[in-house]
């Protein structure tokens, strides 16, 4: 029952999107929380991996069955927390389609590395494109592919992704100059924007190399990860 409901709302206009959010509030909340949590660990992890802050500033915690490195620096912690709390709100309100972390050289101001996380609502998961063309499918019983991933599977997929992020140091060029980082989001035009957030360009890397990493799906979201970086001349 629930499932067919989900599908109906997939052939939505913008209005029905909100209804959907109400009907599945609980599942969506959990899923959003999971994704936000993933972002938090990703930001920490990437800051550590890329040497934006010294290694002594990080401590290891067990998460996803891995040793995740999390900052212990109060300022950095507070900074990430501020970002995360707003991100959380947007996630629950389904306002966000991308989260981006950009590394910029302090001296040159060049963008040297860009981590992009694409968030898609999984409402119709696999059937999305086909159900558009043939609405009949909505009435058909849900196939196996529709089964939401179990907690175990999600954890496994996230673990695999983090391993990949860690392994990316093997191909990413060393950040030779001291870098700072920015966090961007791609939000819907009608999102509420607090004062601390402002419009920005995409801060893309010109002529950058792009590598797509693994994806993972929760009950409601699908997250794709991509890193782009400047090739050494």
């Amino acid at each position, binding site marked *: 029952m629930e499932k067919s409901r989900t599908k109906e709302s997939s052939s939505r206009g913008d209005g029905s999107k909100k209804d959907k959010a109400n009907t599945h509030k609980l599942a969506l909340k959990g899923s959003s929380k999971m994704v936000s949590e993933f972002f938090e660990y990703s930001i920490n992890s990437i800051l550590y991996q890329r040497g934006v802050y010294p*290694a002594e500033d990080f401590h290891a915690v067990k998460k996803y069955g891995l040793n995740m490195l999390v900052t212990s620096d109060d300022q950095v912690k507070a900074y990430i927390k501020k970002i995360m709390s707003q991100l959380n709100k947007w996630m629950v309100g389904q306002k966000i*389609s991308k989260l981006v972390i950009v590394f910029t050289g302090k001296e040159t101001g060049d963008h040297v590395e860009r981590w992009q996380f694409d968030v898609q609502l999984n409402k119709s998961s696999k059937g999305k494109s086909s159900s558009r063309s043939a609405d009949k499918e909505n009435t058909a019983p849900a196939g196996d592919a529709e089964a939401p991933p179990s907690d175990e599977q999600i954890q496994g997929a996230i673990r695999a992704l983090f391993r990949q992020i860690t392994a990316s140091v093997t191909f990413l060029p060393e950040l030779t100059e001291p870098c700072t980082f920015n966090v961007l989001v791609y939000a819907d035009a009608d999102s509420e924007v607090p004062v601390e957030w402002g419009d920005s360009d995409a801060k893309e890397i010109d002529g950058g190399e792009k590598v797509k990493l693994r994806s993972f799906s929760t009950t409601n979201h699908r997250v794709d990860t991509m890193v782009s970086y400047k090739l050494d001349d």
Partner: protein
Amino acid sequence: YTKPAPEKLAYESSIAKACGVNPQTRILAFKPAAPESNKPIDLRSQYNRPLKPANSLSAQFRRRILTSPERVLDAPNIVDDYYLNVLDWSCNNQVAIGLGSSVYVWSAESGGVSSLLETSPEQHVSSLKWSNDGAFVSVGLSTGEVQIWDVEDQQKVRSMFGHETRVGVMAWNKHLLTTGARNGWMFNHDVRIANHKTATLDCHTGEICGLDWRSDGSQLAAGGNDNLVSIWDARALNAPKFQKTNHTAAVKALSWCPWTHNLLATGGGSHDRHIHFWNTTTGARVNSIDTGSQVTSLNWSTQYKEIASTSGFPDNSISVWSYPSLVKNIEIPAHESRVLHSCLSPDGQTLATAAADESLKFWKIFEKKPGSASG
């Protein structure tokens, strides 16, 4: 602020679409600047950082080890064969080295070199070993012949036959010479008597490449190309006391600990890369090190509780490990190609290494501390 005309909006949106920009989304940036980090960052140390703090040895307690060779000698025509053992240092401070079909003796005291022997060019020296008193050197040949030479007189004392394949390694225990051959056979020779062969030790199916008697002569350890380590009791030579299968490659490196008599270290070849430590009384494996490269030889230090290993690909280095903590004290890139043989000087301070890059190098890695009692 005036409301934009609808046609203008439509125009803007079509432009946006053409540019691949979705007008439905805004890109937002978190405006406050990220906190600055003042501390210098070395990424290299970041990646290598152990999860536990490295408190084991701080620099001031670690001893200094010389990283450059004290002396380098040429070793032309050295046979690049992992299975041979053609370097040995006698208690009279003489170094014997087999180069192709010749054996040279270099005196570490005077620096003089003499050519001890030259076999016919179609065979080559596959092993050599000084007798414990340093008066004789035994030479194994690729034909399976074993010769005993008096070094002072530069005379051959005798030839001993019996092996059908080349003799790649040998070890002395007083008047007893144990030889290991390519077909996996080991013979004990009593070099004093005419009928020299006193025992056949048969348990290996591959070439014997490591062989060492314990200093008290009660146990013998052998390693083979069949990846086996066999440990023999001198009183019962019909079967090995223990056979160890843990190594996954040929075992050339073998060394008995000078201060713990039943401790044996063995090192495996390029597919194995481990050093295992054995209690040869119980047969238990007491320690292991993954060295990351082919282990070609092992030498215990008598002065420090340390063991030096030499390696092949990729570093061709000498590593010095503390025992039993297994902390790597130093790794010295030693040669241009794999280190084939090594031996310690009689005073235990200097390690000689010979490599396929045709050089023989002397490293004072176990230098006595000035003022310390003689070890």
